[in-house]
């Protein structure tokens, strides 16, 4: 009966590699995998409340593969694998792979930069490379955006990183505006007061920065008022879509009408057919 030492020392017929070497190799890799899994699991747990899921997963994967690579580097000498030779070969192969996978690496690096720079987060409403929507996921190589009409869009990270990014929800509040036209015969001060009053009734039309309503210009068809309103970024669309009609209705209740496009007409015999006040006399539409 062969002793354990003799068995482990038995060559397998490839160079001087023995069964013992194979067992060492397998053992080190197995331990490496176990350590990698445990460490990655703990990284996920430790960062659960500190990092978003996508970044947490990315970091856990990076840690996992670094440990696996370390285990492979430690185990390879048992198979008489000369790592210095690997470095030379790896240099050439790396060059070839590098050229071949330039865009992949570029996307990967861009993904890491995006992670550190933090211009966008999952759930943010953004516009990047001409695509507008909410960020569904930020992966190692690409960013997933769901457009507002529900279309899944994958954007390579390199494109995200090198494009102008507009993040609509980065700040807590954002401003929007309305253009409201009233007739020349209407009292602009009264229209401004009513508009401000309606804005004040909306919970999410922010108190500060205060809304601003003013006469913007004197148009061809009426006096143009502008209203600037600040709202919480996450609710601005709701405010934007509900407030305008309320303002128009309240103005109409107070006799202030949004005029139709109109033009005063003067006849050649100089007899005046319009009151000289848009909306007050005979008009042509």
């Amino acid at each position, binding site marked *: 009966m062969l002793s354990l030492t003799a068995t482990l020392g038995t060559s397998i017929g490839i160079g001087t590699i023995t069964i013992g070497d194979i067992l060492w190799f397998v053992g080190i890799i197995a331990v490496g995998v176990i350590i990698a899994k445990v460490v990655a699991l703990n990284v996920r747990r430790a960062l659960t409340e500190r990092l978003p899921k996508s970044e947490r997963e990315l970091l856990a994967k990076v840690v996992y593969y670094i440990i696996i690579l370390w285990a492979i580097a430690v185990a390879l000498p048992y198979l008489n694998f000369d790592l210095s030779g690997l470095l030379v070969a790896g240099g050439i192969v790396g060059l070839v792979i590098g050229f071949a996978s330039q865009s992949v690496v570029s996307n990967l690096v861009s993904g890491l930069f995006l992670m550190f720079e933090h211009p966008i987060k999952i759930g943010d409403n953004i516009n990047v490379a001409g695509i507008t929507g909410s960020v569904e996921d930020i992966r190692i190589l690409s960013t997933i955006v769901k457009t507002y009409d529900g279309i899944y869009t994958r954007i390579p990270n390199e494109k995200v990183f090198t494009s102008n990014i507009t993040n609509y929800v980065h700040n807590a*509040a954002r*401003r929007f505006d309305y253009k409201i036209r009233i007739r020349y015969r209407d009292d602009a001060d009264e229209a401004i007061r009513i508009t401000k009053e309606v804005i004040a009734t909306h*919970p*999410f039309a922010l*108190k500060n920065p205060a809304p601003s309503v003013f006469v913007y210009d004197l148009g061809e068809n009426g006096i143009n008022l502008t209203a600037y309103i600040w709202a919480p970024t996450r609710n601005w669309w709701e405010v934007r879509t509900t407030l305008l009609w309320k303002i128009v209705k309240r103005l109409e209740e107070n006799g202030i009408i949004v005029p139709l496009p109109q033009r005063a007409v003067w006849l050649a015999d100089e007899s005046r057919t319009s009151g000289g006040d848009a909306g007050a006399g005979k008009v042509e539409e």
Partner: protein
Amino acid sequence: MFGQYNSTFRYESGDFLVESERADGLLTYRRRCEERAFERILAVSETARVTVNPVEPVNLPKDITDLLQIEFAPIVIEPGATQVIYLKFPVEIGVFLSSEKGIEILDIFSAGNQKYTLYGPPAGGVIARWYRSAVYPEIPPAERFREGVMKLSIQNTSGEWAHVSCVVFNGADMKIFYNDDIVAATATMKIINPSLAETDFTDAPLIPGMTRSVELYTTRKIRVISRGYLMEWGLS
């Protein structure tokens, strides 16, 4: 209206109607408050209880922030001084269902309108529920279903004069108490420098014998470590 009830009860007064009644074998909760109505069918055991009490006023019309900002007439405080004032804060009423298995929020409502504001600059500022209060030297009368009374102790620990006209709190820290007359909270504001202050709530009733409200953050099983709020965007 505030208190604990069996699964069927009814409270009606002025603009408020809160009731839970059994009809056709179904237990139904109904609420009406200033023409706003809410109704739910309840599937609860006989031992279930309904609790109605004031909750942190940062939930309506929808939960978008934890912060509450109260604005008041400017106060000038000399270095090292402490001033106790009374303010009013908005009251939101929470209706909870509780049984041996736990507690769940059923409804939140309030009288009147809400208003929100941005505390700080557009870049970096935070959204807060806004409320304007007068400054009172002693406990003011308040309609307890609409307004609560807050005792605020302002301490100027800095070596400079401070001008204060608003206070911002983290609603998650809020400790609300009530009795048959008022809803109340006690808070502190520690001025670190003329543009920086720390605020926090005190877990103590304004008047001995008050009942402590069930908090929303407790029922949502969110563990809150009371850490106060750092007002870093100024005191006015």
